[in-house]
């Protein structure tokens, strides 16, 4: 039996680098194709203006702030089991943030003008606040990582951890505010979206951490001790319930307001793909199934560690698709009490079918996050060493 992890074989390391690079290059090629031909090659249009790239980007950015919770639980809330995971958690935060921002930037109509976005600020815009929040997050996490890795700086790590925790709460509030501040559409414009996004970041960030940690350990021929596995999976269950709670409250308040009932009927009952994704994708597969797996102990079994967090991630994509695209597909209500028709789709449910380039761009963002995490974990040896136990069957 081995008491320490074996380094991942160089061949496997490079194989994953090449695979990640291929996904990233496909995403960059898609972005180039979109820039050459315009957004006509995407499924987005003048009614559904944000599509698959935004589903990926918002997932990655929300998960980026949430994944740092693992470090925060160790440094801010002094939970010893989480401390060895702080460095990997901070690395994942940077990786997911980079992937999300890359997708967001490359989807712009004029991505070459990103310098304009950095030099012209309109401070009434939540987007403009977020530019500071995202760049500030990256800077704070780099400093935090430095205090974790450099022994002489170790004394500062609790302070850096606290700052990073506070910043990430503000950052996710900013991401939720992108939608919370929109008055035009029935789907958005609600203050509860801010705590909902916070809960989502907790759940999705932890899910992404568990997926990444599980893979990292497997590649080193070891596994996370069962007690820690069970503990983190239980925490994931708690976060999944928190998201369900806020989603429930959001819809219940809407259903209580007569003017919002038609929208709720659309998104929860007769809106085609959107209710299907909401109930089967988010509620059943993304929430109830992982909760059952966790509570029955299957998720902390050796072969079940990936199932629950992967289901949570699938549920996250379903929920974001319903929230972002379903929210736009429902027509703007300009003239209550009238049936409206026009050449611009007034009064009609707006159609949207994601195209290959935009999906490729989204996966490109995931690829960027994967590459940074994979190479970073390898180069800096971020594997927690104090609690490793050999995988069953390992000699």
């Amino acid at each position, binding site marked *: 039996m081995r008491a320490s992890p074996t380094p991942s074989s160089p061949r496997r390391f490079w194989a994953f680098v090449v695979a990640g690079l291929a996904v990233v290059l496909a995403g960059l090629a898609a972005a180039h194709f979109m820039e050459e031909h315009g957004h006509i090659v995407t499924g987005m249009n003048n009614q559904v203006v944000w599509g698959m790239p935004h589903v990926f980007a918002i997932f990655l950015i929300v998960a980026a702030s949430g994944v740092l919770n693992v470090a925060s639980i160790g440094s801010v809330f002094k939970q010893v089991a989480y401390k060895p995971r702080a460095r990997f958690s901070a690395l994942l935060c940077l990786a997911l943030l980079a992937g999300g921002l890359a997708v967001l930037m490359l989807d712009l109509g004029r991505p070459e003008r990103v310098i304009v976005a950095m030099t012209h600020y309109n401070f009434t815009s939540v*987007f403009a606040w977020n530019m500071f929040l995202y760049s500030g997050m990256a800077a704070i996490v780099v400093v935090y990582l430095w205090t974790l890795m450099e022994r002489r700086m170790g004394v500062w790590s609790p302070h850096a951890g606290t700052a990073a925790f506070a910043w990430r709460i503000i950052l996710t509030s900013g991401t939720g505010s992108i939608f919370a501040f929109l008055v035009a559409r029935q789907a958005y414009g609600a203050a509860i979206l801010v705590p909902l996004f916070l809960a989502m970041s907790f759940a999705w960030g932890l899910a992404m951490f568990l997926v990444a940690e599980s893979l990292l350990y497997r590649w080193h021929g070891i596994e996370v001790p069962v007690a820690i596995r069970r503990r983190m999976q239980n925490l994931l269950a708690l976060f999944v319930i928190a998201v369900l709670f806020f989603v429930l409250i959001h819809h219940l308040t809407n259903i209580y307001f007569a003017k919002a009932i038609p929208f709720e009927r659309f998104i929860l009952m007769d809106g085609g793909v959107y209710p299907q994704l909401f109930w089967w994708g988010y509620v059943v597969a993304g929430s109830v199934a992982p909760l059952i797996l966790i509570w029955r102990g299957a998720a902390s079994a050796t072969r079940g560690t990936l199932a629950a967090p992967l289901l949570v991630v699938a549920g996250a994509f379903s929920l974001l698709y319903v929230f972002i695209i379903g929210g736009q597909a429902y027509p703007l209500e300009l003239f209550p009490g009238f049936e409206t028709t026009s050449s611009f789709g007034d009064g009609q449910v707006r159609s949207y079918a994601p195209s290959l380039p935009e999906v490729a761009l989204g996966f490109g963002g995931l690829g960027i996050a994967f590459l940074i995490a994979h190479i970073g974990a390898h180069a800096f040896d971020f594997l927690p060493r104090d609690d490793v136990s050999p995988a069953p069957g390992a000699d």
Partner: protein
Amino acid sequence: MSVDHGRRKFLWESAALAGIAIAPGITLYDLAHGRAPEAAASTAVRWGLLVDMNQCESGCNACVTACDTENGLGGGKRATDSQWIRKIELKDMRGRVRSLPMMCQHCAHPPCVDVCPTGASFKRADGIVLVDRHTCIGCRYCMMACPYGARSFVHEPVTNQKPDVPRGKGCVESCTLCVHRIDHDRIPACVEACTTAGRKALLFGDLNDPRSEISQRLAAVATTQVRADLRLDTAVRYHGL
């Protein structure tokens, strides 16, 4: 040398008469021409439109066609084509159908301007809401924020652009109230076309000037702002809704 008082008196009186005759003309000329080309737009003016739905005929697209021609839009009706103005048909519960044009409402408190990260969406001093094509990064947050669906994103390369109306792939655009015409003392193309078509459903003018025809009409008839619940104080008002 003796002074010819008669001749001097004649000259003075002639000058005074000429002054009296010309002065109102100059004043009217000033009012009609608004401001000198080099002068900045002023908050003293707020341009607006009054739509008389009783005059707007279902099936008439004169305003839409004129807008497309004036601004070099293709006139396509796909979901990815730019439509700066569109006709909406309204059917009430009794089956009565009415029609109205919908375009940028040039709000006094425009959500598109609030959300634009770079300040590319802006409101000119005279109330016209515009997009600066040099600083628009194409994020489409303004389109998410506009309650009227008034904005379009340029999804394809554009050709045959009009010199006065620059457009570009990857930028957001919307009704400019024909700002290039207003700045040369002309009325918006849609208003002109509606009048030419004999409808007179569109009235353009200065909402800040109580003597303007639009202000007097607004004072005389009941008008509605679309999504008045949002209190955006739109510059486009509807009569007969």
